[in-house]
Structures are given as structure tokens and as C-alpha cells.
């Protein structure tokens, strides 16, 4: 494995019970880069993203085949999924703050990881809020409930919560589809900034967004990876005819 590849997906298949949804996916994810996953809805992007931190484990009949290698280990057979989820965090489509204060939201993952020292918690919460570009907006209301924040602020709060545990990788599933253009621009800026400290995989149905924020783009269709390439080449000279049709808006 090339050491610039933080994740290596090998012959990944995924089944919801008997229904196969992902077919023989092979893909390398580069460290400190952003990889965007695009494709028509239902093609398996979310399913694929959720394999990386084993979110499918919640249901018994879900089944993986193949490997996702991370730090020399196969994610799909790891025992400790709590630790895995602090190393590989997830940010969902609609902001999902917990019904607690701003501070407690960010501290949540830290406490889950056994950090109890008040000073350390305060430090790390502040730090995470700064990295998420939210500190200035919430520093005077850390103890108010998170549901009072705007949609864009809530999404950055969720990002701060994920950042607090210092993840290697952040997974984003359509992180801005519930946000207005200004809040979207802020999240995009933040994502570009976050690349310095994490690796990002983002599902987006917005191709402009993929083009703006990602270094690599992967196109999925019917559960298969059709083409993956450097984003600037991907959108200007894709190699595959299906990719060409999809990104030109001439699908089907």
C-alpha cells in the first residue's frame, strides 16, 4: 500500500439482506485530500460511505464482503467500532445536534472516550469549535441549547463534535443539502480548510460542489464505481462515456 493512501477499498460488495447494493468496489483514498462521491440517487453512495465506519452493523442482516484497509487493518472485521468511529467520523445531511447545550454537544464524544478533566474538556471543546469556524459565533452562549443555532451553525457544531475527537477521516453525506447558499459556502470553505488536518470523503448530489471542493471525484452507477479521477480532469475530460453523459446532464 502506497503510504499516501489512507484507505484502500478492495473488492467491496455490500448486501441489505439478500439485496446486493455495492458491486466489487476498488478504490484508494488519498490522505489529506477530499474525495467526492457522485451519482444518481439510489446508486449506493450513502451505502458505500457508511461502510467506512461500519454504520451498517446496526442491522443484523446487512453483510459486507471484501476489505477496507485502514492502518494495515481491515475495517470490516475490526472488533472495536467505537474507537473506529472516533477515527472515522460522520456528518449527516441534516444537522443533528443533540438536545443539550452547545458545549455538551462538542464534549459528547470526548466524554464517551473517557475524558473527564474539566480543563481538558474546555480546551478541546474550544479548539474544536475554532477549527469548525464556529467559536466566534457561540463563545458567549456555550451553555445555551444547540437547537437555538441556525441550520448552518448547527451543521458546523456537528462538525466540531466530530473534530473534537481528532479523527483521521471525516465522512460527509450531502452535508449542505439542507442549507441555504451562504451557509453552504461557509461549510465548503470549512471543508477545504479541514483537509489540512483530516481526510474527507463527501457524498454530494451537487456536481458544482464536488468540482469546487474535491481533489478526486468518483462516479457511481447502479452500485458500481464507473470512474474515479482527479477532479479537474474528471469534469473537463472524463474517460468513460457514462460519466460524460452524467456530468453533462444527459443521463438515460
Amino acid at each position: 500500500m502506497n503510504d499516501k493512501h489512507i484507505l484502500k477499498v478492495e473488492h467491496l460488495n455490500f448486501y441489505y439482506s439478500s439485496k446486493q447494493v455495492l458491486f466489487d468496489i476498488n478504490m484508494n483514498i488519498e490522505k489529506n485530500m477530499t474525495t467526492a462521491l457522485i451519482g444518481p440517487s439510489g446508486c449506493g453512495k450513502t451505502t458505500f460511505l457508511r461502510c467506512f465506519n461500519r454504520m451498517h452493523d446496526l442491522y443484523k442482516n446487512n453483510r459486507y464482503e471484501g476489505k477496507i484497509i485502514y492502518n494495515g487493518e481491515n475495517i470490516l472485521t475490526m472488533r472495536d467500532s467505537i474507537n473506529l468511529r472516533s477515527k472515522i467520523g460522520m456528518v449527516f445531511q441534516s444537522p443533528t445536534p443533540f438536545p443539550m447545550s452547545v458545549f455538551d454537544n462538542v464534549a459528547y464524544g470526548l466524554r464517551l472516550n473517557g475524558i473527564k478533566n474539566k480543563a481538558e474538556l474546555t480546551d478541546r471543546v474550544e479548539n474544536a469549535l475554532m477549527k469548525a469556524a464556529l467559536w466566534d459565533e457561540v463563545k458567549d452562549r456555550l451553555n445555551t441549547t444547540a437547537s437555538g443555532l441556525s441550520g448552518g451553525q448547527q451543521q458546523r457544531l456537528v462538525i466540531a463534535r466530530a473534530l473534537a475527537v481528532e479523527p483521521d477521516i471525516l465522512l460527509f453525506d450531502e452535508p449542505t443539502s439542507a442549507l441555504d447558499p451562504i451557509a453552504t459556502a461557509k461549510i465548503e470553505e470549512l471543508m477545504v480548510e479541514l483537509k489540512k488536518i483530516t481526510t474527507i470523503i463527501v457524498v454530494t448530489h451537487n456536481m458544482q460542489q464536488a468540482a469546487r471542493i474535491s481533489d478526486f471525484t468518483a462516479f457511481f452507477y447502479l452500485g458500481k464505481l464507473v470512474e474515479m479521477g482527479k477532479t479537474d480532469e474528471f469534469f473537463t475530460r472524463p474517460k468513460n462515456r457514462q460519466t460524460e453523459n452524467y456530468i453533462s446532464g444527459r443521463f438515460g
Partner: protein
Amino acid sequence: MFDEKLDNIRSMIAKMALTSQKMLENSIKSIIEKDGYTAEETILQDREIDILDNEIEETCFKMLAIYNPRAFDLRFVISSMRISIDLERIGDSCVNIAKQVKYLSEPPKGVFMKNIQTMKKEAYDMLKDSIKAFFDNDVHLALTTIKRDDVIDNLHKEFIKEIAKDMSDTPKKVQDGVSLIYVVRNIERIADHATNICEFVYFKQTGKSIKHTYFDKVKEVMENG
């Protein structure tokens, strides 16, 4: 909607190309026959080209802003914008040629007339083929046409020498000589624009640029794909 606009661009490029070819024919005819009327006509035709150029630019500009075309569509729009600029310049060159009619004391004769016609034919064929390559998505034709630019360059050099010699032999012919140099210089330029068009065809088809590469490189591209 988008596809309709692409067709629209295609037909404007076709019109521009036809007009520029006609202008090239007419401008040379006006010189060979020292025909002021045809020269006038050429100069008027340039107006059509300018209008089309503006329209293409405007249409492409809007398409980029509104539809955010990608992949081949993006390359098509970009290359159309660039090709339209080259066709517009070809129109300008034809006007430059036609304007020389009034400075000529007599129509060019003998070998001079023949040379002008030879150069014009080469430039005309290159222009025609560059446009054909554009419409047929023909990379090979684009590359072979680029190679032909050397032929024109050589004809141009040789011809200038002959005109210069004639001028030094017969001082009375200096004014005519200067005009003819101007004419052949503009024909040579038209061939350069045809070459540019071929380069944009190559870009449109492959997404890669061969601008400002030289003959050896073109040969390499042709041989190795």
C-alpha cells in the same frame, strides 16, 4: 434547451466559416483583377462576420454562466469561442488584402499572379479543412492540416524574396511590391488562423492542448496518438 443552443452555435460557426471563405476568394480576386468593386464587397462582408462573432461570444458566455457545461460540452463551448475569434481575424486579414487594391498601379502579372493564387489556394484549403475537422470531430484531419502550415510559410518566404528582388531591380515597382508583400503576409496569417482552429479542434476532441507546439510534436502526436 442546452442542445438547441449548441446547434445554434454550430450554425453560427458554419455561417462565419462560409463568409470568411468567400471573403478570402473575393479579396484575392479583387487584387488579381485590380477590381475595386469586389474589394468594396469584401470589406462590407466583414460586417457580417463581426456580428456573428459577437453573437457567438454572447451565446457562449451565457451558456457558461447558466448551464455550467462540463466535459465535451464545456470543451465545445470554449473551442467555439476561440474559433470564432480566429474566423473574425481571418475576416480582418481579408479586409487588409482588399484594401491594397487602391495602392496597386496594375494587377500582379505572370509569376506573381501565380504565386498569389497558389498561396491563396493553400490557405483556402487549410481553412476549409480546419472547419471540416471541427464539424466532423476529425482529429486526424486537424493534425494533417496543421502540418500544412509549413508549406505556406515556405511559399511566403520565397515569394517575399522574389518581390524584394523585383523591387530593387525596378524602383518604380516599390509601391506595388509593398502592397504585394502586405497581401501575402495576410494570406500567411490566414493560414496561421486555420492552424489555430485545428488546435482548438484537437482540444475539443481530446481535452488536451497542442497550442504552440512545433511540427515534431505534431508528428509525434500523430504517430503515437
